[in-house]
């Protein structure tokens, strides 16, 4: 198994009531509510938490980025990854990930990632994402070409990493007449690429086509099964047997010394009205052309029909229900281990990201959580995962992609 520590790096100093009053906590929520002094303190605390996670036995640290929103302070995942490359020694630095369509120059991304891989001595896992709808607007990037840009930037970055330059790239969205960066990754043929997502079928198929592990973000057991089915089907068509090594799962999970404390702190996962990425304005979150055209009607209904009143309360299931359904796991190490065993049995994933602290969980409680998780939960879960045969891509040394696979079987007809 590969078990990671994750935090959204919440800007916990943000005035929650202001967000409720504004009825949205992203994109246009005024940044006059940004508090510089608290942000500086929090960034440094979060870096210390990552170092603790390594010291206490986690295999990896998962990072991400979002823009214009207090739920996530990471405006650039590569900046935090650069810090971790220098201050950690052992953990994998797992970026889930860089929003490729936001890049105007993917070569620059390829260089930054190569430097992170070099400085970390080959510990980079370079996930790629499309970025949420609001991220496109925050970056001024055309949402209508989001998926085309994602796929083209991906192709360009992988080629930049694996083919010596200079060469020329004349694509639909990127034109680089000279590609010849003087920083290339240490890992060969290139750093592992993992793809996180919620349920977008196109992204699942993209990951499966390339043999990239797909990290399901807090999906239900039923949703996850559908994801793995879709993935497995494409894998069979491509010619490899997919399994737990291609499956990852992000779960909100908080551990404390008492059940009461764990429950109280886990409630902080609801701090953004229970929404995964804060309370999204339906229009800003779903710009035209961003989503799959096959689902246009569904999104049009969502954009047009969401009642304004619901913005104030959010759309997530109540906390108690999420806890009961193991969408949120919390407790002492002892009870959490038992719950995580059920999660692993349900999800059959070899990659597990534990989103451990959110909202206004205090620095002291966050540290306790990391210590208890690392010292008690992670070893027990790793052992249980082994028993279930959940071998990670590192355990099995799987090929980094279809392109670099030497074990493909004859294709099965679609």
């Amino acid at each position, binding site marked *: 198994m590969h078990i990671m520590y994750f935090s959204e790096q919440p800007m916990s100093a943000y005035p929650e009531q202001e967000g409720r009053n504004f009825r949205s906590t992203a994109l246009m929520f005024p940044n006059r509510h940004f508090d510089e002094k608290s942000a500086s303190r929090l960034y440094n605390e979060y870096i210390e938490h990552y170092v603790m996670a390594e010291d206490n036995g986690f295999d990896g640290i998962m990072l991400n980025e979002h823009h214009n929103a207090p739920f996530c302070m990471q405006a650039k995942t590569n900046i935090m990854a650069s810090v971790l490359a220098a201050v950690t020694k052992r953990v994998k630095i797992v970026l889930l990930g860089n929003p490729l369509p936001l890049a105007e120059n993917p070569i620059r991304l390829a260089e930054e990632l190569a430097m992170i891989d070099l400085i970390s001595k080959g510990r980079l896992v370079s996930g790629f994402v499309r970025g949420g709808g609001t991220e496109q607007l925050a970056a*001024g990037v055309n949402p*209508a070409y989001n998926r085309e840009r994602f796929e083209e930037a991906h192709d360009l970055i992988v080629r930049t990493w694996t083919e010596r330059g200079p060469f020329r790239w004349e694509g639909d969205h990127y034109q680089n007449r000279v590609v010849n960066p003087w920083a290339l990754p240490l890992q060969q043929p290139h750093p592992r690429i993992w793809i996180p997502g919620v349920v977008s079928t196109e992204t699942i198929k993209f990951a499966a086509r390339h043999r990239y592990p797909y990290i399901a973000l807090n999906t239900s057991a039923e949703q996850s099964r559908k994801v793995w089915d879709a993935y497995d089907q494409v894998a069979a068509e491509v010619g490899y047997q997919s399994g737990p090594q291609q499956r990852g799962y992000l779960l909100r999970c908080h551990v404390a010394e008492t059940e009461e404390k764990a429950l109280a702190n886990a409630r902080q996962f609801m701090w953004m009205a229970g929404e995964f990425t804060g309370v999204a304005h339906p229009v800003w979150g779903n710009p035209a052309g961003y989503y799959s055209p096959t689902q246009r009607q569904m999104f*049009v209904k969502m*954009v047009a029909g969401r009642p304004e009143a619901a913005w104030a309360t959010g759309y997530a299931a109540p906390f108690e229900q999420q806890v009961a359904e193991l969408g949120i796991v919390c407790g002492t190490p002892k009870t959490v281990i038992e719950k995580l065993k059920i999660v692993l049995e349900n999800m059959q994933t070899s990659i597990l990201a534990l989103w451990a602290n959110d909202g206004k969980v205090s620095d002291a409680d966050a540290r306790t959580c990391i210590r208890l998780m690392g010292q008690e939960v992670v070893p027990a879960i790793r052992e249980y995962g082994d028993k279930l045969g959940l071998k990670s891509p590192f355990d099995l040394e799987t090929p980094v992609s279809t392109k670099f696979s030497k074990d493909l079987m004859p294709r099965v007809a679609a």
Partner: protein
Amino acid sequence: MVAWSESTVTVAGGKVHVAHGGRGAPLVLLHHDIGTPDQLDFYDRLAEHFEIILPHHPGWGKSERPQWMRSVRDVAVIHQELLAELKITGHSFLGLGFGGWIAAEMATMAPRDIKKLVLVGAMGIKPPEGFIADQALLSYIAYVKTGLHDKSVFDKTWGPEPELDVLEQWDIHREMCFRIAWKPYMYSQTLPHLLKNVHTPALVVTGDDDGVVPKSAAEVYAKSLPHASLSVVKDCGHFVELEKPAELAGLVTSFIAG
């Protein structure tokens, strides 16, 4: 009662839908970014005086989407080729909002071909004051209402809760705007310069309460076109043809006939 007919012409590899109606001098009508209803009181009024040629922009309404299209100037070229295919000459242009931008682009391409040019709440120019309203931040309904001085016109035209197929069309049209006019949003940095030798007599119309395109953009149009006059419609927003159909039809008719 005006009889309307439809035709389809293949231009640049894609099917362009055209509505025809009325009799008289040819008037090419270029619709808004949100597309156009099939029937409008305003269209019928104009059709009493003109032969109306009303194409759906490529990617809008019943016209096919050219996946390759990347600019509003591409739309203008397609419409020029469409007019050539239809063998239309001696025509005038009436451009509404986004269609005004297309009309202005078309005028710069072939200034001698056009009899008269009417631009109503035209996009296409960076307003010196204010901004062109950003659809990306507004719901479909809120965007249209932003363009109305009298909000009750919305209900009269689409009903208080527009049908899903109307909303879906608005989404498709919005996506088209993004595909071809995302950045800079809904204007051209070169158009004001290119307008300077368009000697076509031009009428620039703006509602005095246009929440979509600031009046200052109309003023730049009126200043850039050498033979233009500016007309401001009172108590009116961006969708002048919906709010003041009789007044706008009168302005257009007397200007083109005059």
